[in-house]
């Protein structure tokens, strides 16, 4: 493959609980306009659109991408939608990447939005992700699904609830520096412990919020960027990998992936690192935005990214390695724990590392970052996407 693929524009909403001033397509348009302005392009300059949208039921419109066509200016243009659950946003960036890498297009927009705050029953919707045969009769939801990962991780490596609280404190303090983050108030370990249990061992403060807002990015071919002398950062690694749908197959005997860990995420990082030529992530990666909607899942994500040995992430986090100013800041934006507009959450991960390696992250800039990694998780901890972005 000749010719790289660059990011030339980024737009994201200031995420909030509700956006009663804007309809769902209005939010998509808001992000699209911000990204086009950032790229100094108008809609005519876009050749194709990848629409980022996870479950329809979350926005309450079936095939809701259809009403988003005009919001992204796709009339009579190439347009398709991607859905890999929570990983949708990063999969959409990857899909846009393939458009350019294939040589089919020079300039591609990916955009989406979510209004999770308008869904009165998000855990009810999310229960419907499980199969109607064996699992849906159980009270499965995304919170207790990952609480069960926490239980296994605690058993395997000795993580404590205090370790989990430290993730919350770190990410909230970083979100306080990011004007687009949803939960921006700093907190303390005591406050996390004082919050009520949702699904043991996950407490309210260990959980992400339900956010409304949009995100969009413009990708372009190297020749397009060079010919116009544009400012860009580069996508140098892309990977996806999945594991079994059945949580109960990630335990017992003879399993491949342990529900304590993020096995397919580590395989996924191996793919994107190989493509980017990264052999020693702890030395070569400067900043990471890792999809972790609950505090405990940041640990196994850090380990899957090769930034810590299995089970070592809690101790390293305690030492300050993953905070802004530490060795490799993780979720300098505050991460998913502070902002979760599901359809674009994983796109925000890519957007944030792109801003970091671009030196445009503002108050939460990691100094000197040149190589960043982003990840997204979807389904029942099933689909994983990773991207490497370099200055």
């Amino acid at each position, binding site marked *: 493959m000749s010719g790289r693929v660059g990011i030339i524009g980024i737009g994201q909403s200031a995420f909030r609980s509700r956006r009663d001033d804007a309809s769902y*397509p209005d939010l998509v348009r808001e992000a699209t306009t911000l990204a086009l302005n950032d790229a100094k392009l108008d809609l005519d300059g876009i050749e194709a659109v990848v629409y980022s949208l996870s479950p329809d039921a979350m926005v309450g419109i079936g095939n809701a991408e259809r009403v988003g*066509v005009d919001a992204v200016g796709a009339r009579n243009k*190439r*347009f398709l939608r991607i859905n890999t659950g929570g990983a949708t946003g990063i*999969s959409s960036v990857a899909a846009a990447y393939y458009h350019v890498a294939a*040589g089919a297009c020079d300039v591609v927009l990916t955009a989406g939005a979510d209004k999770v705050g308008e869904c009165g029953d998000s855990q009810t919707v999310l229960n419907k992700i499980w*199969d109607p045969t064996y699992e849906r009769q159980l009270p499965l939801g995304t919170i207790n699904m990952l609480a069960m990962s926490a239980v296994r991780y605690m058993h395997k490596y000795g993580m404590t609830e205090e370790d989990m609280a430290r993730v919350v404190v770190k990410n909230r303090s970083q979100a306080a520096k990011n004007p687009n983050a949803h939960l921006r108030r700093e907190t303390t370990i005591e406050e996390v412990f004082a919050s009520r249990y949702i699904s043991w061992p996950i407490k309210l403060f260990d959980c992400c919020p339900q956010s409304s807002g949009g995100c969009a990015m413009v990708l372009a071919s190297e020749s397009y960027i060079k010919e116009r002398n544009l400012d860009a950062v580069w996508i140098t690694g892309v990977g996806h990998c999945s*594991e079994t749908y059945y949580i109960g197959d990630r335990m017992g005997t003879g399993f491949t992936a342990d529900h304590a860990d993020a096995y397919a995420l580590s*395989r996924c990082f191996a793919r994107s690192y190989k493509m980017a030529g990264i052999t020693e992530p702890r030395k070569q990666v400067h900043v990471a935005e890792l999809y972790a909607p609950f505090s405990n899942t940041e640990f196994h994500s850090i380990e899957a990214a090769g930034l810590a040995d299995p089970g070592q992430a809690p101790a390293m986090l305690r030492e300050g390695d993953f905070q802004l100013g530490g060795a490799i800041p993780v979720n300098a934006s505050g991460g998913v724990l502070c902002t979760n507009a599901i359809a674009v959450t994983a796109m925000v991960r890519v957007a944030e590392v792109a801003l970091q390696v671009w030196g445009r992250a503002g108050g939460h800039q990691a100094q000197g970052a040149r190589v960043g990694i982003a990840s997204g998780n979807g389904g029942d901890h099933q689909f994983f996407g990773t991207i490497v972005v370099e200055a």
Partner: protein
Amino acid sequence: MTVKAKVGVIGVSIMPRVMDDRRSLEELLFEVTRQALHNAGLTIEDIDGIVVAGNDQYDGRAISVMAASGSVGGVDRDILSTPSAGEHAFVMGALRVASGLYRTQLVVAWSPTEVGSMSEAQRLAADPYFHRRLPLDELSTHALQASAMLAAVPGLEAMAEKIVAKNRGNGAHAYPDLASGELAVAPQRWPLPAGMAMAPVAGAVALVLASPDYVSEHSSDVAWISGMGWATEPGFLGDRDLAQAPALQAAAEQAYKAAEITDPGTSFEVAELSDATPFQELLAYEALGLAPRATWSERVADGSFGANGKLPVNLSGGSLTLNPVFCTGLIRIAEVAQQVLGRAGAHQKAGVRTGLAHAASGPAMQYQTVVVLRRGEQGAAS
């Protein structure tokens, strides 16, 4: 699409109608996948990536790709889903191979009939701001399109009836076991009389795509994608002239440019066009450059697009015979691939070198995709 690497179709499996409850949806997808892999002469170990498409509201699953993933070999593999349309999975799979990053892709779409009312599921796609209170299921949007076309072109009813007869005749030959029996016709929506659209059936379809180096290493028979285009109409019906198909014209332009087709009327030996209603097949004749509307009457009467005509359209019988709603678009592409590969069975046309597939999805053909397939050197058509 001018791409870096050529992309070929080397395996196809079409289940245009599944008539029993022996299998769960997951098991059906497992079966269609195994058939496609077998048809391509490879195993799941040879598959680098997968793209699938299902519709959450039809499936009754909040993220359809989750349940499907294990069935199609998604475990420990790279899998994406394009819930906008079955044919978009093909587009995405082709782009992935064309990027040079993948040697093979498996593409799968499906359409069950487990929902109590397909119409009810479809009406949820009307936005809650302006349209949810209207009875807008897909058949209603097709009826609105038919209505717009009837107003624009005199004498259309008779042509529509002839197209229904042509496609059902083809269907009875192509899939005699499936097309016979208690096949239901869709409920009436004026101006579509009962019988002018088929009720939904369950179905699934899978294709295997491969890169030139994979094809030459394995001496696979291949149908090369020589052109591919895709485009969308706007979201609100009121913003469209339903008697025209500008997005299909745009998609055709992309595909023909890449395939270097200047005279579509004489460039193909076979075509499969989306025909949720016969009016859509007519509209596609024009937008694809096969016949402008002024000539429809004559071309329909002289059998140009009949089984023995110059360009047989929908030798499979189309969706006017078998209508697994969400995968009808991808099935059009799969049918043409089979024709080009010489694997179409009962409805194989002899000597097919180049075929045209048109896939449409959504309200009144919102999403339009065009694929031109050409027989590879190794490809042997019977």
